[in-house]
């Protein structure tokens, strides 16, 4: 039987990564009652996974965790938001249902990796780039494993550095972007000394690993698990034996919660004003869902949203110049790491598009729209709700992947039954006993 916990707060924050932590701490330090709802066991999101307890967190992370622990913010961990409506959030943990009544809401739900289908992409030991790093941070030993890191985005270098630090042998980094675009990006980073220094540190750590540009994985080879990857580098293909493939094609924003609340989305990102407020009054959004821009921007946007939600417009405004500087990364990353059309050609008809329902690219491709493809092939109708295949289909077919009905994550039927104040307080697994 599920426990139901009802929580009241001034401001609820969805997501306990850098943006969420910054927002929550900012509000709490100005006196508001804040609750953070986060689906991992500890706050930190992806980039600061593991929270304050983990050794080797960046110094900035450690500072924020320290402030968080002193701020009085209530962090509800292991909680997945599945429904939101005016003034109420509903989330579930593995054993309970949480109903959170809020005055204002800050959505800091982060981003997820973009996975593009290619031959062999469903083979065990093909992981996301951030995915393998997340698993390694969750206890997976990578020492002496041979790893290929591939895809696109600044994450690749960071992941390769992390893996190397933990004893893996990273055979190569295959970045699909062009060298000229990467150099431009490097030039921008150079104006941000800390970021640039971090990138240099990553490259120094991975100095024994080839970093190839205009390079991507063509196929993952292996019967029951990965044995090698076939990589293309400027048109030449070669096979590289390896234990793990860590691949990801940059990030897609998690806009579902904001969309469910009616917030407008433009070109896939949540629209916000200069105070990070969405098109819905009292609902703010900070970090990756407003534009993929990295951790510094997320921290700034989180603080601005926190100040604005707490009614402190001046403190919010004071951070506008810094935010404007770091906002440059949004456009720069989008342009530098935009996906080249060759990648779409890897998704041949016979390979799977939807991994939950095992629907092939060919079957999905017969349709003109995501809605029609979903209905007729059931791609996107599995538990991931299209987070993997829909995002891929948007790139492959140019479809608009829209529609946010609750639940935005699968939830127990008993939790769905509580999805309104009507059921609040009633016995949920109810009926005559």
């Amino acid at each position, binding site marked *: 039987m599920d426990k139901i916990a009802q929580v009241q707060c001034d401001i609820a924050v969805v997501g306990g990564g850098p943006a969420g932590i910054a927002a929550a701490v900012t509000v709490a330090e100005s006196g508001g009652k804040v609750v953070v709802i986060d689906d991992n066991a500890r706050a930190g999101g992806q980039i600061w996974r593991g929270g304050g307890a983990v050794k080797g967190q960046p110094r900035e992370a450690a500072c924020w965790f320290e402030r968080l622990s002193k701020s009085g913010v209530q962090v509800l961990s292991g909680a997945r938001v599945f429904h939101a409506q005016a003034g109420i959030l509903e989330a579930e943990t593995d054993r309970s249902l949480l109903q959170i009544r809020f005055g204002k809401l800050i959505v800091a739900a982060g981003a997820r990796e973009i996975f593009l289908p290619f031959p062999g992409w469903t083979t065990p030991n093909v992981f996301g780039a951030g995915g393998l790093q997340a698993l390694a941070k969750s206890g997976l030993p990578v020492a002496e494993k041979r790893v290929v890191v591939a895809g696109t985005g600044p994450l690749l270098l960071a992941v390769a550095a992390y893996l190397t630090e933990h004893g893996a042998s990273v055979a190569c980094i295959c970045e699909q972007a062009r060298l000229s675009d990467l150099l431009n990006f490097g030039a921008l980073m150079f104006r941000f000394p800390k970021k640039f220094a971090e990138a240099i540190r990553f490259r120094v750590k991975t100095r024994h690993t080839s970093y190839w540009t205009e390079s991507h994985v063509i196929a993952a080879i292996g019967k029951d698990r990965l044995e090698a990857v076939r990589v293309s580098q400027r048109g030449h293909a070669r096979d590289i034996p390896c234990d793990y493939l860590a691949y990801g094609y940059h990030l897609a924003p998690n806009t579902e919660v904001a969309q469910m609340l009616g917030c407008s989305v433009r070109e896939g990102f949540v629209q916000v004003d200069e105070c990070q407020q969405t098109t819905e009054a009292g609902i703010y959004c900070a970090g990756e869902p407003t534009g993929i821009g990295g951790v510094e921007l997320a921290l700034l946007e989180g603080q601005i949203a926190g100040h604005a939600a707490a009614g402190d417009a001046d403190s919010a405004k004071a951070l506008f110049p810094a935010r404007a500087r770091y906002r440059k990364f949004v456009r720069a990353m989008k342009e530098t790491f935009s996906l080249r059309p060759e990648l779409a050609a890897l998704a041949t008809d016979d390979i799977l598009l939807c991994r939950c329902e095992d629907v092939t690219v060919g079957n999905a491709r017969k349709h003109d729209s995501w809605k029609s493809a979903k209905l007729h092939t059931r791609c996107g109708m599995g538990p991931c709700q299209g987070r993997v295949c829909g995002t891929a289909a948007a790139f492959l077919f140019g479809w608009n992947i829209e529609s946010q009905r609750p639940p935005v994550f699968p939830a127990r039927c008993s939790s769905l*039954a509580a999805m309104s104040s009507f059921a609040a307080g009633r016995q949920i697994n109810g*009926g005559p006993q």
Partner: protein
Amino acid sequence: MTVSADVLIAGAGIVGAACAWELAKAGFQVAVIDQAFPAAGATGASMGHIVVMDDSEAQFALTRFSQLLWDELRDELPSTVEFDGCGTIWVAVDEEEMAEVQRKCAYFQARGVRVEILDSGALHHAEPNLRAPMAGGLLVEGDSVLYPPTAAAFFLEQAAALGTRVNFGKAVSRFANGNAVLADGTVLCASKLINAAGQHAARLTPGIPVRPRKGHLVITDRYPDMVRHQLVELGYLKSAHSLSGDSVAFNIQPRKTGQLLIGSSRQYNVEHDRVEPPIVSQMLLRAFEYMPALGSLSGIRVWTGFRPATPDKLPLIGPWSEDPTLYVATGHEGLGITTSLATAKLIRAQITGAAAPIPAEPYLPSRQTIAEVHG
């Protein structure tokens, strides 16, 4: 651009698709138009339950005839249609409902439908996850379930192989007097038009007495063998047949994938298709009363759809008196999947002038019960 055909069908849902195939088989040049894509309306939202109903002679005749047509067709259906002859159990919670079970049993047996009364123990054996003890139930073995969108797609494919043409994705701005006009200016002409537009029927042909009746459904993740038959509470009929107001009734379907489809709800006078948590809540709580174990299952999706409902609970199948070229094939409420094949046969007979396979009078748009409302 002008397109001509013998018959032009508006609506690529299961009814329109079934009519297209049937008329193509009869040798007509058929064209099908739809503002969206096949099964985008009620068909795509529906449960896909093929069920014989006893609430009136006319309803029985139509559902029974159609069910038998489905049985004849079943071996031809591709595996994507997921046809499963799992049967229905009407569940009785108390002695009063068991009396209803007895009545239904007699009714069906007198009309040649194989049924079996299950007592409390037999019901529990058949469906161990139902709360026990129930009073019992009625097993209707000949009922089935399938996945409606792929069934509609199959009918359209078969029709296309016989020369049927389709034009999807454009709003229909005119549909009368042998003509249809699409949003991009395409003009289609045919000697016969069929309005099979379901919840949109009245927009295409003003005056068709069809009102949308909203429903919600929940689908779970895969839990194989948890439910073996379509299970429906006997109170379902009260819900389906209340002429106004919101209602819910326990109705659960096992899909071949192992997922469970949980319903059902009915609402009038709601135009938006947004999921309404209070209705979902009522519907699920009702379901938990019958099957408590549902509470802990993972619910993956919730959606809504609009059944096309008529004032007297029977569909409209036949000529539309105000337009000599126009036939209506809509208003099937919650029985569109079941009765799609029978509807197609009736329409074929009406258009070709052949003898109707079952008496067509109860479903004619010109019938008394409709005329009274229509005015």
